């Protein structure tokens, strides 16, 4: 690798690692955030499991709800920890320092995403504990390798979407908070978090074509539950679409950042908190 390229790679890896560190430290040091991020989102999942159990639904439905509940914590993190992040950074006066630093802003966003995935995965263990230990939900044996592949693709596509949203939300300024709120519940619903995506029919197909959460949940259910998952598309197709989502959202995130930076430099109003 040539000198400048190696130096650039080293710089961006350092920036990514530093921003990942902030996410990790932030998640560990504030216990109140852990309760808010890990415990509360799983209460909905527990409610659905108990509801299905009370109604005498097939046991596989309980597993459906558990997987949906676990993945809901990632969507929360993508919205609030990725999508809204640049807006908060701007409010703190930090964004202009990011723009004036030599590292790539994609490196900083990647750091946020990696830290977000790591810490949300740790928090999602609470959901696993609640679902499979406390509530006693069971799944048949599954292929760990395929599970890892589908989970990784779900995460990369979901957080690549978050990287795109970071720039787009910033353009909406103070509306970012409302946007996060507005996108939370509808995406839960349209992703079939607590029921099979197939139940949504054409609407589900349209939603799955926009947000990777639905396809990710559906694919993971297929890996873990086999035929009981009532999959929306064949697993192989969903895996390929998730890979496509990852690529598309990464390109979009880069384009959105470039657009944002250009706009900021032209109009001078995005990097200062009072503008």
């Amino acid at each position, binding site marked *: 690798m040539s000198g400048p390229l190696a130096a650039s790679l080293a710089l961006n890896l*350092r920036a990514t690692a530093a921003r990942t560190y*902030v996410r990790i*430290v*932030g998640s560990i040091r504030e216990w109140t955030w852990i309760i808010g991020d890990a415990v509360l989102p799983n209460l909905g999942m527990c409610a659905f499991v108990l509801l299905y159990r009370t109604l005498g639904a097939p046991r596989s439905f309980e597993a459906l709800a558990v997987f949906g509940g676990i993945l809901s914590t990632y969507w929360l993190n993508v919205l609030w920890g990725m999508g809204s992040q640049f807006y908060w950074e701007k409010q703190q006066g*930090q964004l*202009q320092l990011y*723009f004036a630093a030599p590292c790539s802003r994609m490196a900083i966003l990647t750091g946020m995403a990696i830290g977000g995935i790591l810490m949300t995965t740790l928090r999602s263990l609470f959901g696993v504990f609640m679902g499979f230990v406390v509530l006693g939900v069971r799944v048949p044996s599954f292929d760990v390798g395929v599970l890892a592949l589908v989970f990784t693709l779900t995460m990369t596509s979901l957080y690549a979407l978050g990287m795109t949203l970071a720039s787009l939300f910033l353009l909406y300024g103070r509306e970012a908070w409302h946007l996060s709120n507005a996108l939370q519940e509808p995406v839960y619903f349209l992703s079939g978090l607590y029921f099979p995506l197939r139940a949504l029919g054409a609407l589900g197909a349209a939603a799955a074509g926009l947000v990777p959460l639905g396809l990710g949940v559906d694919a993971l259910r297929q890996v873990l539950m086999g035929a009981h998952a009532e999959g929306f598309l064949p697993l192989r197709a969903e895996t390929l679409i998730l890979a496509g989502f990852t690529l598309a959202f990464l390109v979009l995130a880069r384009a959105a950042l470039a657009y944002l930076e250009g706009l900021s430099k032209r109009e*001078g109003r995005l990097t200062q908190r009072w503008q």
Partner: protein
Amino acid sequence: MPASDTLKPPAVETVGLTRTFRGARARRGRPAQAEVRALAGVDTRIERGEIFGLLGPNGAGKTTFLKILTTLLSPTAGTARVAGFDVEREPREVRRRISLVSGGETSGYGILTVRECLWMFSQFYGVPNRVAWPRIDALIKIVDLEEQTHTRINRLSTGQRQRMNFARGFVSDPEVIFLDEPTLGMDVNAARALRGYVARWVRERAGRTVLLTTHYMAEAEELCDRIAIIDRGRVLACDSVPGLRRQVQGGQHVELEVRPADGALPDLAALAGVQAAWGAPHPERGTRTVKFRLPPDTPLVSVLRQLEQVGVRIDGVATRETNLEDVFIAVVGRGLEDTGGPE
């Protein structure tokens, strides 16, 4: 300046640098705002190893100038080069070599400690850990935050956060550092210590350059090798402090404490011989301080007589040397605290 530095391109060079901001469109009954010209053809050349001051009232265009040089804003016309690189065409090369500190800024994440926060920023500049950590510890000592090294940022006082922010600017050991009102709101001792550090940093590290904007005349006078006085987007004067002083010498600077008979003071500038008059009230004493410049051929006593004739009692008289404030007012036509247009 070391000989090697003269071979390198200047630290900052701008030619005809212009920046215009579009006015807000008319909406909901509010009229449209006119276009604002923040910079109107600024030509500067700052050599490596200089501490260069930019002095101007609010709205003079100082921050706009800095934003362009730090690649945060595009110029509407003209060119700007930092460390030999064009800010528009080679922003990455510029960013590798610069750092920006804005006074009153509260950078960093509250959840991080002072040491962690400085480390994070060092990583955004690619500083290897073996270099970053000793430098961070030294900077923490310099800004007198040793006791707070492992304190979370959200537990620091405003002044402590400002000092940490100042340290952040130096953590990448930039070739050119832009200090935008760095001591704004700091206590006197902290500000003095940081000024001392800036002077040492430039002296001890060959080729390092500081571009400082400040509202504090004394700070500019103490630190800067050269000062540009800027107003309404134009550089009105640029020279060393002695050079600037020479531009307005040839007169006497007078400071009077006066007690107007009926509370109203006559227009001093209308008095025969008085140039560039300004003043400040002292309501607690019922007096006003008035300052003005007299040309060499006008005796002070003639002005004092004119004041007495209109019923103004004179409580005190002082004359003194030309200082930077005098220069500023002579060049700009008003004091530093008077507001101009939008920054």
